[in-house]
């Protein structure tokens, strides 16, 4: 009888102990040999790049015998949430590839790299990318890992069916929307594969920036300047394009990567998007239909680009070592090696100037990457404004723009409402 009472109770205690101590079981900061342990997170590189990452880590450990690097590969959809959870648990990685930076920048949980990186090391990077995704109030909080610059994918078959010359894709944003309308009128297909909801590239605020309608706030970030005639003209052109079928109706309620799917499914003729990595979703027959060119220009004359970044949490006990490893990972040699495995672009000057990017392409992915690479000097990093509550502001912009596209209000009403709501938020989150 005694046994029957004790066993369940003991089981409960064990379970409680396991639950209570589970979060604290992750690695310590030094191993049994006294080496510093750096935890390094990447996003969805998996087995495909394991040799590359492990080789790089082995090289670094050989050069730095007092350091051991633990590599953790996190799946893409969860990295921001896992990073938050690790920060809250007080056990974050020392160096991590994360996205959705504005909220981390806003809450001051990342190390300011300007004080941890020398001028010489900083000068290695393409300037736009060093002061890019991780810029917040004049300081930089992220090491640019690798880059992508937008280009234009288009379906030659749909172009031909619409009576357009498949060898003459659009060169400006205005021309792209105009061709989109023609394509819809003549083929029933949609012109431009674009979605309004937060997308990897090309959200409304990037469209504004491409047209030179930037910055969106006054100098002390107390008021927005978005409600102006140029922004109105841009909004009206996109609303008009939407209403005339240049953009799929689902653009207002689409989710992640839908725009890529619509293009590959042959629903839409043009995809202004990033480089060669999407070719992994093409089959042979689709590759034969695809045309590639540089991204259409807006008034600014520049092309949007973006970069994956490495960050060092402020609470990492080995920030200097983590930054040193981050600079090693992004050194020209390893960037070039990474670029030879996958269609990405480097963020350092030396790697970007390498003849690798002008060699004859081995496949469609290389070809796309070279088109992107050619525009590296003509690109701007599509980093969101470093304003508090930007996530909310971005959603307000989408909502009001969507209402205008859906015919619920005019473009001017949308801009006026965005201005009012943004100013309200700015008042309450005054710096």
């Amino acid at each position: 009888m005694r046994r029957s009472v004790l066993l369940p109770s003991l089981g409960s205690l064990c379970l409680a102990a396991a639950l209570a101590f589970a979060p604290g079981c992750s690695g310590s900061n030094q191993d049994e040999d006294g080496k510093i342990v750096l935890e390094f997170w990447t996003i969805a590189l998996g087995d495909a790049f394991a040799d590359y990452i492990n080789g790089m880590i082995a090289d670094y450990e050989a050069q730095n015998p007092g350091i051991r690097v633990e590599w953790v590969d996190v799946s893409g959809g969860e990295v921001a949430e896992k990073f938050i959870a690790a920060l809250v648990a007080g056990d974050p990685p020392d160096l991590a590839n994360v996205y959705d930076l504005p909220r981390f920048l806003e809450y001051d949980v990342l190390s300011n790299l300007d004080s941890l990186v020398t001028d010489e090391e900083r000068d290695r990077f393409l300037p736009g990318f060093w002061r890019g995704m991780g810029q917040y109030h004049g300081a930089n909080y992220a090491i640019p890992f690798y880059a992508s610059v937008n280009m234009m994918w288009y379906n030659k078959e749909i172009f031909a069916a619409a009576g357009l010359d498949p060898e003459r894709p659009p060169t400006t944003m205005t021309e792209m929307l105009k061709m989109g309308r023609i394509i819809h009128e003549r083929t029933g297909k949609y012109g431009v594969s674009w979605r309004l909801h937060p997308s990897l590239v090309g959200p409304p605020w990037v469209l504004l920036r491409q047209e030179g309608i930037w910055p969106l706030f006054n100098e002390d970030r107390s008021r927005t300047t978005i409600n102006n005639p140029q922004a109105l003209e841009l909004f009206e052109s996109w609303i008009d394009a939407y209403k005339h079928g240049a953009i799929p109706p689902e653009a207002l309620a689409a989710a992640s990567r839908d725009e890529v799917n619509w293009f590959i499914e042959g629903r839409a003729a043009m995809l202004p998007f990033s480089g060669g990595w999407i070719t992994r979703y093409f089959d042979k027959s689709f590759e034969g239909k695809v045309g590639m060119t540089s991204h259409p220009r807006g008034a600014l004359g520049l092309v949007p680009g973006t970069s994956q970044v490495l960050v060092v949490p402020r609470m990492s006990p080995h920030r200097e070592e983590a930054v040193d490893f981050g600079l090693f990972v992004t050194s020209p040699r390893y960037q070039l090696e990474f670029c030879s495995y996958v269609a990405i672009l480097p963020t350092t000057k030396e790697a970007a100037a390498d003849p690798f990017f002008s060699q004859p392409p081995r496949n469609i992915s290389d070809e796309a990457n070279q088109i992107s690479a050619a525009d590296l000097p003509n690109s701007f990093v599509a980093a969101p404004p470093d304003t508090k509550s930007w996530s909310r502001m971005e959603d307000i912009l989408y909502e009001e723009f969507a209402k205008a596209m859906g015919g619920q209000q005019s473009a001017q009403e949308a801009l006026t409402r965005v201005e009012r709501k943004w100013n309200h938020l700015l008042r309450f989150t005054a710096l």
Partner: protein
Amino acid sequence: MNKGIPFRQRATPYAFIAPGLLLLATFFTYPLLDTFWLSLHRYNIFHPPVWVGLDNFRRAFGDELFWRVTANTLLYAAMVVPALVVVSFILALLVNATIRGIRIFRTAYYIPVVTSIVVAGIAWKWLYNSDGLINALLRGFGIAGPSWLADTRGVPAALLNFIGLEVTSGWFSEPCIALASVAMVTIWKASPYYMIIYLAGLQGIPPQLEEAARVDGAGWWRIVRHITIPSIQPYTLVVSIIATIGALRTFGEVYVMTSGGPFHRTNLLAYYIYTLGFKYLEVGYAAAVSLLLLVLILVFAIINFRVAGGDADK
């Protein structure tokens, strides 16, 4: 009363239920109390919580978007729950038949329940596309279908429009086509689950009752109306309560299919809480809205219980 029973014997049942209680306390009571505590604070995860009393609740009551999302959620439940009760009951009647190969039908009908909402959501998105399969079928009948997940016209207005009546009144603007389309997916996915509950109820009805009714000359419909439906009333109560709770907590369909768009017309409370907590990191406010959702669920569970006669024994 327990004086004569030794302590060990009295303690035994508590020891047996201790693991269950511990799990309940860890995964239900503690999170609930913690949510309540968080709801009284302004908390962004990264910095220590700041006490704000009932401010988060006041903020919710003054938050235009909270009310819009709550209205969406109620409208959604109003579409989904009655449909689930009716559809799953009809499905249960069909698969209760004693015909050859009926088990294959039961299994086939159950497939949506075990299908991941991500997979189902993506498949339905393809079907719902403006140039998807549904609209291709409609085109065969000469009907131009809408863009199901992006169309914010009211279903009644669209139907009246279809038969040639132009309406402008706001009365016909809800529910919108996008929300009704999302609701359809929930109904498709959840009805086989409730079908199984009804099936258990149908198989518990004594066959003599139906036989006696048949002898007295009752047809199929009269048997269903006067014997089957009253006999499975407790099951209807269970189905309506679980379906209501499920509908009010719907998240996956919105997350996968619409992200709450277009312009929040398909945004439901669970998705709004997720956005507040994980996107805006307004954890205190998200906790307050979660508690308001809990109250809403409790209120509707009690209403269901009363309406369906769950307290009839009293």
